[in-house]
């Protein structure tokens, strides 16, 4: 059954915001504005989901073995539900060792791909993950770039393979999925039209008033306020806050000329394709 919807993005691109927006729409409100009880809360890389559905212990398996089983896991999930299921992922679209897509097309309803100017992605990743700017820029151009690699201890999420920022976007675009791209900058500058177009792509029908209310509830200020009051479980232990600044254009005051040039050179084609450079 084709009922899985992938909410895919490079980390720190607006994926969580969209997930919270959908939760607000589906539940009618944000349940007392607590972000820790979201309606749309499934993560494609959940270790718990893998372990629950397979009866295996992912903590004792290699990522090669896990990725070989993930298509079956998504098939099981798809078989067990009747409604569409929205799954967040920072993985790029890739084939496992058996040559099968980890995100199986036969169970995919489509993909919402959220993209953000890599100059701002770099800044947000630096501040959120407490890394050096040049290290983040190198990672964003490294084909093996991944997160949650369990070497010294175990992460609650399975390893996410991002690859390079450009390849991440291109892999989903050529995945064969029905795909809808949302630019973070449009989500910020023109939220009603941008979010409404995505809802239309997903076949979800809400009134203008409902959409406006969900946008108001999930405004950056409200999300930041909620995180301050209740905390947010998706925040990393090592980070100060999940919702940091939210405004496009931080790169202009943070990155050096050389760093800007390096990112622009590394990702020129995809940046041009999505209007980030002329």
């Amino acid at each position, binding site marked *: 059954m084709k009922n899985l919807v992938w909410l895919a993005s490079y980390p720190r691109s607006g994926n969580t915001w969209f997930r919270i927006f959908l939760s607000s729409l589906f539940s009618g409100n944000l349940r007392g504005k607590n972000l820790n009880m979201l309606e749309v809360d499934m993560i494609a890389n959940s270790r718990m989901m893998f372990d629950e559905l397979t009866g*295996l212990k992912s903590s*004792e*398996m290699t990522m090669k073995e896990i990725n070989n*089983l993930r298509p079956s896991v998504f098939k099981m999930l798809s078989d067990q539900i009747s409604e569409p299921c929205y799954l967040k992922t920072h993985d790029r679209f890739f084939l496992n060792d058996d040559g099968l897509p980890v995100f199986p097309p036969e169970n995919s309803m489509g993909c919402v791909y959220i993209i953000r100017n890599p100059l701002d992605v770099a800044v947000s990743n630096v501040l959120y993950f407490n890394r050096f700017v040049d290290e983040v820029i190198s990672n964003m151009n490294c084909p093996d770039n991944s997160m949650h690699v369990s070497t010294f*201890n*175990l992460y609650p999420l399975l390893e996410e393979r991002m690859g390079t920022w450009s390849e991440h976007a291109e892999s989903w675009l050529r995945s064969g999925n029905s795909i809808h791209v949302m630019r973070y900058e449009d989500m910020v500058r023109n939220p009603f039209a941008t979010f409404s177009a995505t809802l239309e792509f997903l076949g979800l029908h809400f009134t203008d008033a409902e959409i406006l209310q969900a946008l108001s509830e999930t405004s950056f200020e409200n999300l930041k306020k909620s995180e301050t009051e209740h905390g947010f479980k998706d925040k990393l232990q090592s980070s100060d806050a999940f919702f940091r600044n939210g405004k496009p254009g931080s790169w202009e005051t943070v990155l050096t000329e050389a760093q800007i040039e390096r990112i622009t050179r590394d990702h020129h084609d995809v940046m041009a394709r999505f209007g980030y450079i002329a």
Partner: protein
Amino acid sequence: MPQQYFYYKAFGLTFKSCMEHPGFIVENETASPDCTISFGTVPRKLSGYGRIQAEGSKTGGQFLLKIKNVGRYLVANGESITIEKAPEATDRDVLLFLWASAIGALLHQRGMIIIHGSSIKTGEHAVIFSGTSGSGKSTIASAFVSENEAQIISDDISAITIAESGIPVVVPGYPLIKLWRDSSEKLLIEWDDTMLIRESVNKMIVKIGDRFASKAVPLSQFYLLSYKNSGPPAISEITGYKKLELLMGKIFRKKFVWKMEAGPVDVFMDASAILPYVRVCTLERMYGIAYLDETIAMIENDLRQAEIL
């Protein structure tokens, strides 16, 4: 040459095994073991899902587990496990999936209640630390045992049977515990690459020795470990319907059990049988070894208040 067999005691059962299980409690040879583990031909398919298949009922039936490059395991009627080993598999890999998943299925088939959690014995009480992978079950159990007059009953999966008196008891599993590198270093257990659970996974098997409980212990306390991303740990006692709901959620691999046709009713009955005898608390903490000493002190204090320690 005839097949050599080894005899072991685990989960209150006698296993006759074609494989040597280093560190297990050795049992005398017997003509009537509870379970026989042998090499043989295993079918590629029962029915249903891709590589992970189960059919049958909770007591009895068949469960097929297939792991590429490791092997296929057929668990039947709570009495036998047949292994068809992949040519490239190491014994260590074959044993690992046997201990966790195949024997977990076998215990289900025998009607035991399985909780995804590590258990310890303190006085005449069993305490279970349950939670998802990475939540610190083994780390907390090990740290608690090293700080107190306590013993490990079982690591990672805890099997409960109902004694004739109606009291739920936790039966001893294997005298081994599996730790990630950060935990072993925190607990001053020397890291040894030869004890890695697999060559490719950075988790080590530690032999428990005399800190292993040899007899079944009545279950008194259940902690559900959950994640918080900042600040010190917090314990809250759960009562009423929430207590039942929480226990039902932790009966090992719920969906995995349901595919074996033990439906929600069985899980409800299992949880209901335990409910009157066990105090249930949530224990919220940061993952890893952050605040570990504070966590142990808080558990000790909580158990003292409940007159368990």
